[in-house]
């Protein structure tokens, strides 16, 4: 079956809309905050609607393309919306919209809001570019841009800790980015610039050593972003330092962008056949397994809630990498669907963590005792999202893990089943005590309480509630056409044709 190509300016619009928005938002904000918020929400909703607009087409196998710029006959920029891109793009846009709704009331008393929002919008545009990139050069440009534009958002608080975390982030990410650059240049050198499509740019009759070098450059480069274990150092520092809404994005889609990059490289730069002949994937799988278990074990002893969640992100992204690296259709579906499901579950967890810290002053697990009595909604949402992370059916986390488990067995590596279940079990060990304490722990004495410990206002609860509902709905309605699962299946079908 040949995919139908449709030339369309819509992908370009999805990328440009937020970027243009980033330009006009600071100008608008000078007058009234209200206008700025309306403009932000309009832009973000329009982007989300566009991203969801592509879903039916992607399910039907259509591919929309938009050529941006042809620098030389060999070099051009180009957007291409395939099922994988639609899945990631829709996740990004929807999560971004939810986070924006959350951050408008949440960030009101913060400083330098214009900077915050315009960088937020810039990042959204670049992320959409990453999702819809049609060739490696476009991918690289948007990937580097959003990596660097993230910096002002991480250091937004401008506390020494935030600045230190930002420095750490930028050092890690620039090193990772330059490795990706090397990989891209090398690929270009031996294969020329080509469209990213199923089957791969590289073929197995090329030099094996060169292919291995390219592969490891890409894995190390994207591995920094995807927080593969020896390269994960920036994650646990950047998450607690960033403002809560942004940590939700950081954890939900930014780290996932690394795994998305790995997926693009594995399935569309190399292709399944080349990689299985090259025999490098078992090493990546072992690395991913190490990531899952090591990060989970480290998470158990973190006292800071956001820090614990950050380690959890590392661990969960390990699942995605594991699923991709097994090179089997089932595992790949599980991995891709877990990107989306994890984004919303972790989004809910971080948004709740933000509410706990802002409205009850709770930043550490040791302070959370009795929080459920004060903030029943927040803790209920936190609990549902936690159960989802652990993989309890019928919540979203179960879907990815189910397909991943079946994929592991189809790939004939039952050993990784232990990693899958062990990681989830340790997730229970680091998440359930939080809930248990919040509901059944002894609340602190009256003197230790801070004055305004009431449930957070509806305006911030509502977005968190949306992510929680998505956690439930994505689990219950996993097989409905248009769900992440169907998109992932569509994408994987094309890779394994």
């Amino acid at each position, binding site marked *: 079956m040949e995919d139908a190509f449709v030339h369309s300016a819509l992908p370009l619009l999805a990328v440009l809309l937020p970027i243009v928005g980033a330009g006009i938002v600071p100008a608008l904000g000078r007058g009234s905050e209200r206008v700025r918020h309306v403009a932000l929400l309009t832009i973000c909703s329009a982007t989300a609607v566009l991203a969801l607009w592509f879903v039916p087409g992607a399910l039907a196998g259509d591919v929309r393309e938009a050529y941006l710029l042809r620098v030389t006959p060999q070099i051009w920029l180009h957007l291409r919306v395939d099922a994988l891109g639609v899945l990631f793009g829709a996740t990004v846009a929807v999560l971004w919209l939810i986070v924006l709704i959350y951050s408008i009331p949440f960030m009101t008393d913060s400083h330098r809001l214009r900077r915050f929002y315009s960088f937020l919008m810039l990042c959204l545009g670049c992320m959409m570019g990453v999702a819809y990139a049609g060739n490696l050069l476009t991918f690289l440009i948007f990937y580097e841009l959003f990596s660097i534009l993230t910096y002002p958002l991480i250091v937004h608080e401008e506390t020494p800790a935030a600045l230190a975390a930002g420095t750490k982030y930028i050092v890690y990410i620039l090193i990772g980015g330059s490795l990706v650059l090397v990989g891209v240049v090398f690929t270009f050198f031996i294969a020329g610039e080509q469209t990213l499509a199923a089957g791969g740019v590289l073929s197995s009759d090329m030099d094996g050593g060169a292919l291995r070098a390219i592969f490891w450059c890409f894995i190390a480069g994207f591995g920094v972003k995807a927080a593969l274990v020896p390269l994960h*150092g920036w994650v646990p520092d950047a998450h607690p330092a960033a403002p809560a809404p942004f940590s939700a994005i950081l954890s939900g889609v930014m780290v996932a962008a690394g795994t998305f990059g790995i997926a693009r490289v594995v399935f569309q730069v190399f292709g399944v056949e080349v990689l299985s002949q090259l025999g490098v994937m078992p090493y990546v799988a072992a690395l991913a397994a190490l990531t899952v278990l090591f990060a989970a074990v*480290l998470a158990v002893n973190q006292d800071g809630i956001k820090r614990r969640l950050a380690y959890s992100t590392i661990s969960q992204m390990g699942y995605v990498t594991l699923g991709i690296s097994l090179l089997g259709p089932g595992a790949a579906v599980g991995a891709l669907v877990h990107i989306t499901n994890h984004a919303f579950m972790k989004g809910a967890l971080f948004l709740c963590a933000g509410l706990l810290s802002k409205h009850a002053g709770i930043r550490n697990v040791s302070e959370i005792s009795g929080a459920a009595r004060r903030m029943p909604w927040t803790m209920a949402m936190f609990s549902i999202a936690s159960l989802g992370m652990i993989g309890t059916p019928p919540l979203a986390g179960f*879907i990815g893990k189910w397909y991943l*488990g079946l994929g592991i*067995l189809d790939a004939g590596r039952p050993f990784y089943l232990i990693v899958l279940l062990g990681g989830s079990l340790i997730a229970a060990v680091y998440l359930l005590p939080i809930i248990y304490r919040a509901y059944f722990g002894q609340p602190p004495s009256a003197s230790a309480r801070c004055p305004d410990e009431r449930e957070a206002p509806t305006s911030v609860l509502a977005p968190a509630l949306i992510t929680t509902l998505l956690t439930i709905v994505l689990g219950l309605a*996993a097989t409905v056409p248009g769900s992440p699962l169907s998109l992932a299946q569509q994408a994987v079908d094309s890779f394994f044709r």
Partner: protein
Amino acid sequence: MLAVTATTMLGAAALVPLVASNPRVGAEIPVMIGRLTFIADPFGMVFALFSTFVWFCATLYSLDYLSHHERHDLYHCTSLVVLGSMLGVVLAGDLVTLYLFFEALGLVAFLFVIHTRTAEASRASVTYLWMTVLGGFALIGGIFLTHALGGDVSLAPIPLHDSPELLRWTTFALFVLGFGVKAGMVPVHVWLPDAHPVAPASASALLSGVMIKAGAYGIFRTVSALFRPEVVTDVSEQLWRAAAGFGLAVLWLGIATMAIGVVLALGQHEAKRMLAYHSVSQMGFILVGIGAAGYIGPEGAMGTAGGLFHAVNHALFKSALFLGVGAVIYRTGQGDMYRLGGLWRRMPWTFAFMLVAAAGITGVPLFNGFVSKCLIHHALEQAYDVQRLASLDIAEKIYVATCGGTACSFIKLIGLVFLGKPEHEYGPEVTDPPPRMLAALALLAAAIVALGVRPGLLLNGVFEPGLRAWALPTQRIAYYLDVYFLSPADLMSVVVAFAIGATVYVVGMRFSLFHIHAPAWVGVGYWYHASARGFLACSAWVGDSYDAYLEAVSRFLRNTLIGARSMWRMIERDIDHLAVIVATGMPGIKGRHFVRTAHAALDKEREATVRYAVTKAHAWLQSREDFDARRSHDTLEAVRDIAAYMTRRQHGQRTRTLAEMVRSGEAEAARRAFEHVMHEIRAYRSGVAHTAIELAEQRMSGLDVIDQISEAAERLSREEGFDRRLRTPLEHERPTRVALHDSLGADAERVTDTVGRWRARWFGHAERAVRRSIEITRLVVESATEEHSRWAIPQQVDPRTVLKMRRRIQRYARDTSLGVAAIVLFFLVVVVSVLVGSVR
């Protein structure tokens, strides 16, 4: 509440005619992965029936029992969710559905366990939670592995022909473990005796009576549905042998469970705790029945029927017992058997119903336990007959002994609580409980008797059609009803059991054997806790060592950085020195040495001044009242910055002065005065320190102090007057101004004295040549620098402009270099692309 449970019960009852006409009634809901399927076959139906019946009774009972409790809304809410999950488990049509409801059941029932919120309850609930979670993971692992074995997730036999033995056994073990946790199977029973007694009595009845049956149901499905060869298609010997192995394993787990449960039950004081241990033990009976059926194979109808019958029976009598004991606690407030007694007068109806339930659990003829225990016993004998394994003979003996132990326990319970003498007089409030509670007990007791008298209801009505639907022979059940039911042999076995029980009771009470307790480390619970603690300790260790590793790496990096910086400073100093030499011309050896030492001393002085300022600032900050660690750290940094800037300017001034003096031939004088001057200028350290602290304070409050800093630096150098001081001694012994080359020549001659004439000559020649060339360079450099200094003399330009200019230049340089880098990169890409293009 009552209405809802009653409707549910009626709904379950409505399944009876449906299932009778078609043994697989099903429904599907299209959610989650594909769909959730529900199938009601006779076995599922019977579980649903007794669950809803017991639930109805317990709810009826709880209305009065919980009336004075807090949180009864939460209780009823939990109860309904758990009922729904329970029905979901027993009516599930595939493994995913079953797993979904099984997890929901386990997690929501947690709220029952922690309901009272006492310290004991929270301890029990933690154990319960972790065991449930672990069980859930074992179960999902097993479900995954059925996929590897080639099964779909339906509750149909897995094709076992060509799968490796290890995989088969692992899958089976995971299933049994997953369900066994819920069923209270030894060795994963530890949560049960803690969790069941701490819940309110009606919840205990549900936990012990109904919910653990979900585990038994699961093990039944595992043995009889999943790991059973497809009977119709192939009855190959080898496959049945594999299935028999699984059956035998379950059988032995059952034997261990029943024996250990009963032994532990005998040692209990508290009535509810004892009942909980009996739940463990009775689950053992059920497992033995199911296991025996699996071991025997196609002819194992009696085992299946016995095991499931016992599940129904246990639900009825165990909930009745918990409710009865609850009634006693409700009235007396006392749950310790040894402190109660003689209640039969005060609570006659309760006594009667308890007696019926105890007769049921001990297996008195015409009560329900008799039938199921005899069925299981016959199944065990039949299993022995299959291969005549000696071990099964022992198992049969243990079985009889356990029946004896059970009898003993309940003689003890009835004897201590209702008969015997009370420890003290009861108040007037100790009477039979309110009618609704009694009605619940009466309903259960009626069911116990009904099933005891008419076992055919279940055996012919449910189990036979169920087994027939699987195409298994069912003659054994009919044979039991015709031949064995109420036969002398069976009656004898009951008598034997009661004889053993009475003996144990008498001996135990006489020698108070029931108060002996084994040390903690004998129990598996101790080891579970130890391993959980071990895991936490391990993870803490991993975390700590990882942190230590990170710390070491960053320390290494920091040290490297510091080393590189100090090395750079050394190089810089040498360059500085070289520049001075170049600028001043080559002095003689002495002059050279002097310039070098003077530079070193001045540099040291500069560093010392900064250090002095920081120390001063530190002491000052410490002495302040509003000492704030973070703020003072920032202030110290500011002081360091400002002092460093000022001293750098001072240093520049001093070295310039020195260079000028050396150049103008005053080197000797400067050398003589230097020691003294260095000593004097130390006094100016405090000036720098004070200014720096003052300005740092201003800077911390947000003021721009650049102007003040340079002004202060100017002022300080004026006050210090380094050049004036260096020249002061010249006033009284002013030497004649000698030309530069002369002084150098004098130095050279002095050298000749010390190192020898012939060498000095060559040295002198060389030096003279060098000197000349340097002289020329010096002149060039001097003119060049003079030109330069005339162009930008700092005194004449506003220092602020200089700073601004410098910043602008830096920025410009950076931008330009970035731009150049970008262009280079771009061209690189272009060149590469063109190359690649041309190659193609």
